[in-house]
């Protein structure tokens, strides 16, 4: 049972619900909050509520946004003929950081995984097909995670998209940049060999 006050227990329990936070860290966070200035605490609480209230999903690409359509979809400078399909909003964030991709995105909201009860109808695939047929898209880039479920989703989407789009591509699997060949694990190396390209 509780060693501290009930309100602290409650706060720690709330923190512990978050991913990557164990019981100990939850207590550390809860006790830290007690040490913070009241204004800081209020602003933290506001930030939490604010984010929840203001954030919604873009009606075009399903990315998280405050405005609908989102900043990327409504940006006139972006290339509307290329759509990059990703699993989660966090993937958009990662790709945007590269500053290399100037096209649009489409967030599926997951991958095919029968074991988790996720089928094609649970992903935003219909929306993707709608976008492709209603506007002139030249290329779809499939950027799923390199695992069994990502692979199946890539195969599933490519079959649906090929009759509709001129070019359906997928991101390459291979060696991480800046690392040494000798440190790459065997599976990555063999995939990199498999996907070798002519120079």
């Amino acid at each position: 049972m509780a060693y501290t006050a009930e309100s602290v227990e409650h706060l720690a329990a709330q923190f512990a619900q978050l991913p990557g936070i164990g019981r100990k860290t939850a207590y550390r966070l809860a006790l830290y909050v007690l040490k913070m200035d009241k204004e800081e605490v209020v602003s933290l609480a506001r930030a939490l509520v604010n984010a929840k209230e203001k954030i919604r999903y873009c009606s075009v690409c399903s990315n998280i946004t405050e405005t609908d359509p989102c900043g990327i979809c409504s940006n006139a400078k972006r290339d509307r003929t290329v759509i990059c399909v990703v699993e989660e909003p966090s993937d958009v964030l990662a790709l945007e950081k590269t500053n290399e991709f100037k096209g649009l995105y489409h967030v599926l909201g997951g991958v095919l995984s029968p074991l988790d009860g996720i089928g094609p109808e649970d992903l935003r695939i219909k929306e993707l097909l709608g976008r492709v047929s209603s506007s002139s898209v030249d290329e779809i880039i499939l950027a799923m995670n390199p695992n069994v479920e990502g692979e199946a989703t890539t195969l599933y989407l490519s079959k649906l998209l090929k009759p509709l789009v001129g070019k359906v591509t997928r991101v390459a699997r291979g060696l991480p940049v800046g690392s040494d060949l000798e440190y790459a694990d065997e599976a990555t190396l063999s995939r990199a060999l498999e996907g070798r390209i002519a120079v």
Partner: protein
Amino acid sequence: MKVVSVEIRNFRNHTDTTLECGGGLNVLVGNNGEGKTNVVEAISYLSLTKSFYAASDAVVLQVGRDEFALKGDFSGDTGVRRHVEVRYRRDTARKTFLVDHTAAESLASVVGEFPVVVLSPEQTGITMGAPTERRRFLDLVIAQASKTYLQDLLEYRRILRQRNKILLDARIQRREPGDALEPWNKSLVETGSALMERRAAFFASFKDALERAYRTLAGNEEHPGADYVPSFKVPSWSDPKEIRALFEDELRQHEDEERRTGATGVGPHRDDIEFTIGGISARKFASQGQHRTLLVALKIAEFDYLKRQKGETPILLLDDVFGELDGHRSERLLEEAQTLGQVFVTTTDLRSFPRGLVPGEKTKVFEVEGGTVMEGVH
């Protein structure tokens, strides 16, 4: 590869055991239930990341303890020192590996780093039992030799579970799985074919080693064989496209059966090995003695294969094999084993050992009693 020392904490009946191992023969002697096998199991655990006996990690943790820990100091053939450590915690049900004091990315990354060959009474199933036991043998050998194989194997199992879930759901809801299966079929064929190709290549080089080992042990002209029996006929392994086309075709032919059973009907998870002696099925017709010789020969061939593939001598773990073998055969095995590398042997009776078993730099005898290990015979 040799084990220099092992530390065992809260694992089975060992609360706090440290073993300084000899470079050659290590004999663990004690009555049944005193903890001999547990020492051998601990070494295999460090190497294979799991027990060859228990199905789960929780089972090997001592009752009433929160955590077990195993540490091993190894020395490679070239003298390179390696260190491996595993911890398992009851509350999180997680085990973590440290290899050379760095956290291992995955359990799969540890397998094959410290190659071992295990021979125990349970393994008689390889030649006598169900196909699962033969597939387990096959996977464990090739996975230790090739990380790509292990990766493909883990992926294949995941694909299989996903695909079977679709089939099962469809069966329960009495509807057609439809095109939901299609992406999984492609993955199944691709990864499954890669596994089959590697298994076929394994047998091509394993057969000779098996024959050599069998003749040394049996001392006669009996001719052993090990043939790969995939779940569907593959006339030639030279064309990858052809194998995949055959696999796809087989999947189509199994469609009705799969809808009835709710499980994937064809693929490497249904493969088998046919062992023969003198061209006749060993499983059906071999005598008990022939089975034992075949099993020991298999293990020596496995040792040979791993050594060639990895360029590193595996550690040989012989658990309670002398109860199974007659005096002549066990003497041959022990002579053979000692020429191979470092060997760990468990026995209830030192008298079953050949004379010339003198404790020294190369041979060490450990007495195991109630979860404690003492060097020398007391």
